[in-house]
């Protein structure tokens, strides 16, 4: 085995080194040149190893490298006699495959690792790039490189496939693409890694199956066949999902009607009705039209007074905790967030690093860190002390940052490098803070901090502008929001039910909006009753598409939720309650549809299999598989079943298996070869059909 590994590695190593060189250049380019450092970057564009161009390069580059190395290992040797030369050695064919796999993995690592390690070193070393990095930001690139390995395995499986249809040949490549989409869409690195590992195992088994199938279709080990069948299933599912999406996009959309309360610029409280996001009516709260002039709708709705949420509750939390925001491993904002990027007058950029709970500023042209922002204010780069654990950057106005903790609220100016403490009193807990726009002010903002009894409004330099006492029972209506009119004479304070209340209860509760002067005098208080819940009916084609989902997945999800809920997972328990509670009619309907569709397709599978003269065992197994997997399973069956070759029976003319000695229809054997007078045998020949035929 060592010899084959050495031979395989030797044959691919130069290619791997060449690819490594190209891959390194391709990765360094976006890192240093594509994201130009003189302009600010954003969390959405990504930094360093989360730069969108860099991720594209690693995603497609790794896939390309995987494909090239995989095909290079197989195709030059796939010539029938060359392949026979390779395999005709005293070892099982699996040893050859395993050796190729080991050598190929080594070559793949050699091709992708140097660039990755170099980039990792550069982004983590100060002075090379104009943005901070934390090691976890490399996870997305690691996932991409793992994804590239799927393409390597897919290339092996595709290259090893013997005399099979092009469709069947392409299945592993489709699964590799599915793997790429999984890892790009996954929230967590662990999800991406496990998904990739799962598909890698399937593709490895599929390669094994292809190797054995090319030699002896009927004698492949069951595990390799199972892997190939699952590859077929996932490929069919992926292609099905793709075409379903295209189909849904092509179908006319169901109209969606929504209603919501708005406060117009003149202070009027109205209900705005939208159909497919286009305003169709603006009415007073009593239902009379505010205006029927449709040309005014756009202007009126563009200048409504937006209310920014300041708190989720005031006072007792009743056990409620803010939900953990999705830590999407491929987004820069999971690890750090850019601060006041566009507002800083010098080419500086500031980043809030979640891990160290400090902010750090960079001078972009010099690619140097210039200062840090800490509880002590602005300090030299190396003299940082982290903020308390629950400190948050709540809002940004110009180059001013609003940061809050349990008792602390402060405004920090990046330009002047000064911090103004708004409140730091242990007896006055801060329940939330946010910034909000001043209408028609070209983006100017104010800061709001929610205390137990009032809402404090600050200007961006930290000057207290107003103190607005609460007028509602904030122990229940503690989700407070705030807005202001253009000349800052009227503040609008919204009171929504606190987050700790159950959703069902919150939906029944009214909300309030107060119009308050800068001095805290309440001018009006409006009670907003809950609006009727808008529903949109599901179009019939959605049901049709859902009918072909895998019942295993559908019922398996319910079972997973049940087990998870019983083990204490509240999220899963909640999902199950929803599926069996308010959504029970839909759940039941879909479940029944899936069962009916699967049973019908399993029956069809049995019929097709028997018609194609698969033996009973194979027909039964395939029918069972389709019963569990529905339409994608049927497609996999069609592509992957070992359809026996057939030809017309010389006796009755109906199709019969070539590998069987007798015709199932008329019982005739194969036509005996007539001996002809030119035959020359110096010893007697065995009679025709003297031995039982082989079966497959």
């Amino acid at each position, binding site marked *: 085995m*060592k*010899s084959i590994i050495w*031979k395989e590695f*030797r*044959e691919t190593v130069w290619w791997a080194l060449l690819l490594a060189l190209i891959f390194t250049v391709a990765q360094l380019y976006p890192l240093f040149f594509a994201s130009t450092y003189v302009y600010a970057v954003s969390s959405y564009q990504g930094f360093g190893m989360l730069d969108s161009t860099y991720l594209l390069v690693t995603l497609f580059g790794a896939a390309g490298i995987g494909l090239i190395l995989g095909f290079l290992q197989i195709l030059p040797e796939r*010539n*029938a*006699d*060359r*392949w*026979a*030369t390779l*395999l*005709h*050695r*005293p*070892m*099982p064919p699996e040893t050859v495959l395993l050796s190729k796999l080991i050598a190929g993995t080594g070559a793949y690592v050699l091709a992708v690792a140097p660039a990755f390690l170099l980039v990792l070193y550069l982004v983590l070393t100060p002075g090379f790039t104009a943005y901070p990095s934390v090691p976890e930001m490399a996870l997305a690139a690691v996932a991409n490189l793992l994804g590239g390995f799927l393409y390597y395995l897919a290339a092996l499986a595709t290259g090893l496939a013997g*005399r099979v249809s092009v469709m069947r040949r392409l299945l592993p490549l489709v699964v590799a693409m599915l793997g790429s989409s999984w890892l790009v869409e996954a929230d967590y690195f662990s999800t991406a890694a496990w998904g990739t590992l799962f598909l890698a195992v399937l593709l490895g088994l599929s390669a094994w199956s292809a190797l054995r199938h090319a*030699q*002896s*279709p*009927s*004698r492949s080990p069951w595990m390799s066949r199972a892997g190939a069948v699952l590859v077929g299933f996932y490929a069919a599912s992926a292609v099905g999902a793709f075409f379903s999406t295209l189909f849904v996009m092509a179908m006319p959309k169901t109209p969606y009607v929504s209603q919501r309360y708005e406060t117009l610029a003149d202070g009027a409280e109205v209900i705005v009705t939208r159909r497919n996001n286009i305003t169709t009516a603006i009415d007073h709260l009593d239902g009379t039209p505010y205006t029927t002039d449709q040309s005014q709708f756009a202007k009126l709705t563009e200048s409504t007074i937006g209310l920014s949420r300041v708190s989720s509750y005031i006072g007792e939390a009743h056990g409620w905790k803010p939900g953990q925001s999705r830590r999407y491993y491929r987004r820069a904002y999971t690890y750090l967030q850019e601060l006041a990027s566009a507002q800083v007058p010098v080419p500086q950029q500031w980043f809030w690093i979640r891990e160290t709970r400090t902010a750090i500023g960079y001078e972009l042209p010099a690619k140097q860190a210039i200062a840090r922002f800490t509880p002590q204010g602005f300090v030299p780069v190396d003299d940082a002390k982290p903020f308390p654990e629950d400190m948050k950057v709540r809002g940004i106005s110009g180059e001013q940052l609003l940061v809050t903790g349990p008792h602390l609220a402060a405004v920090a100016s990046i330009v002047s490098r000064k911090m103004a403490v708004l409140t730091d009193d242990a007896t006055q807990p801060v329940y939330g803070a946010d910034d909000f726009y001043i209408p028609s002010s070209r983006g100017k903002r104010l800061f709001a901090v929610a205390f137990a009894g009032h809402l404090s409004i600050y200007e961006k330099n930290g000057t207290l502008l107003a103190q607005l006492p609460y007028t509602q029972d904030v122990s229940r209506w503690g989700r407070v929001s705030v807005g202001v009119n253009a000349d800052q004479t009227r503040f609008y304070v919204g009171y929504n039910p606190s987050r700790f209340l159950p959703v069902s209860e919150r939906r029944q509760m009214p909300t309030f909006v107060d119009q308050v002067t800068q001095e805290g005098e309440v001018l009006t208080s409006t009670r907003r009753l809950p609006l009727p819940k808008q529903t949109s009916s599901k179009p019939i084609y959605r049901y049709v598409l859902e009918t072909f989902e895998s019942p295993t997945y559908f019922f398996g999800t319910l079972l997973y939720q049940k087990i998870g809920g019983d083990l204490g997972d509240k999220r899963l328990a909640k999902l199950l309650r929803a599926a069996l509670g308010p959504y029970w009619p839909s759940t039941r309907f879909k479940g029944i549809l899936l069962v009916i569709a699967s049973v019908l397709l399993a029956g069809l599978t049995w019929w097709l299999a028997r018609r194609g003269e698969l033996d009973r065992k194979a027909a039964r197994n395939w029918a069972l598989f389709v019963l569990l997997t529905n339409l994608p399973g049927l497609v996999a069956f069609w592509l992957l079943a070992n359809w026996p*070759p057939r*030809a017309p029976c010389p006796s009755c003319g109906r199709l019969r298996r*070539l*590998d*069987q*000695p007798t015709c199932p229809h008329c019982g005739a054997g*194969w036509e005996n*070869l007539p001996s*002809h*007078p*030119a*035959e*020359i*045998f*110096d*010893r007697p*020949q*065995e009679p*025709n*059909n*003297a*031995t039982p*035929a*082989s079966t*497959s």
Partner: protein
Amino acid sequence: MSDAIVIDHLTKYYGQREIVRDLCLRIPTGSIYGFLGRNGVGKTTTIRTLLGFEEPTRGSTQILGEDSRHLKPETRARIGYLPEGHFVYRWMTVAECGKFQASFFPDWNQEIFEAVISHFRLTPKMKAGHLSRGQRAGLCLALTLAPEPEVLVLDDPALGLDPVARRNLLQSMLYIMRKPDRTILFSSHLLSDVERVADRIAILDGTTLSVDSTIEYFREHLCQYVLRFEQTPPAAPELDGLLESFRSDRELFVTLANPDDKTEAALRALNPKSMEPVELSLEDAFISYVGDHGEKTFFTKDLGAA
């Protein structure tokens, strides 16, 4: 004596295309078998099936007593296989090729390897990618013979080689027969080579086996008669075993398989001025046997047209 190779009613299809039909062949241990036939009649497919690289559609094949579909690595070690094309890893030197191959075979005989490569004037440091076709064939043969296989299967080993290389190849191939109970099955289109080394031949003709005999027996049972006439000769009569006939201005050439007294009598009934049998070389016999049967008329037609 036991059979080293047993092909039992082998039928092979690729899709709907029949490649080999109902082939039965037993190759006794210790024999050298020439496997002959025109291009595309299924020789390579049969060999590949025999070595387990293809699955029979019907029937079965055995080699060294083991079903070809389940050859154990130990059994495979006892079988030498040289496919046409003489594939070598071009980046290896001759010595590296030997070392690489030796790592798989516990009974590797380095002396044989060195003897064969020197027979082909190869040196260990030569790069395999720089070898001529004949030298490459020599290297491949050395790699195949050095494990001292009990059964040697060669698929058109002399294809494209010059006469010297062919002779070297044959000599090296025969070297394996110095030990008892060694068997060789080789396919070839070079009948002089076959005649030189083979004990027996098997001929595939249009997917089926038509000949399985010693070379002498084959030649004895194939006969050409030259019939001379005073005038333009008549067409050859419908005879059992008639392979081909050809008429010139005053002569009729008739090639027959398994001629007997009846066929001779039928030919004499044409009243030729003279009739004499001609002994055919193996090559002529083979060409007559596997070529297009019936009367060859194209030449006379051309003359007539002129």
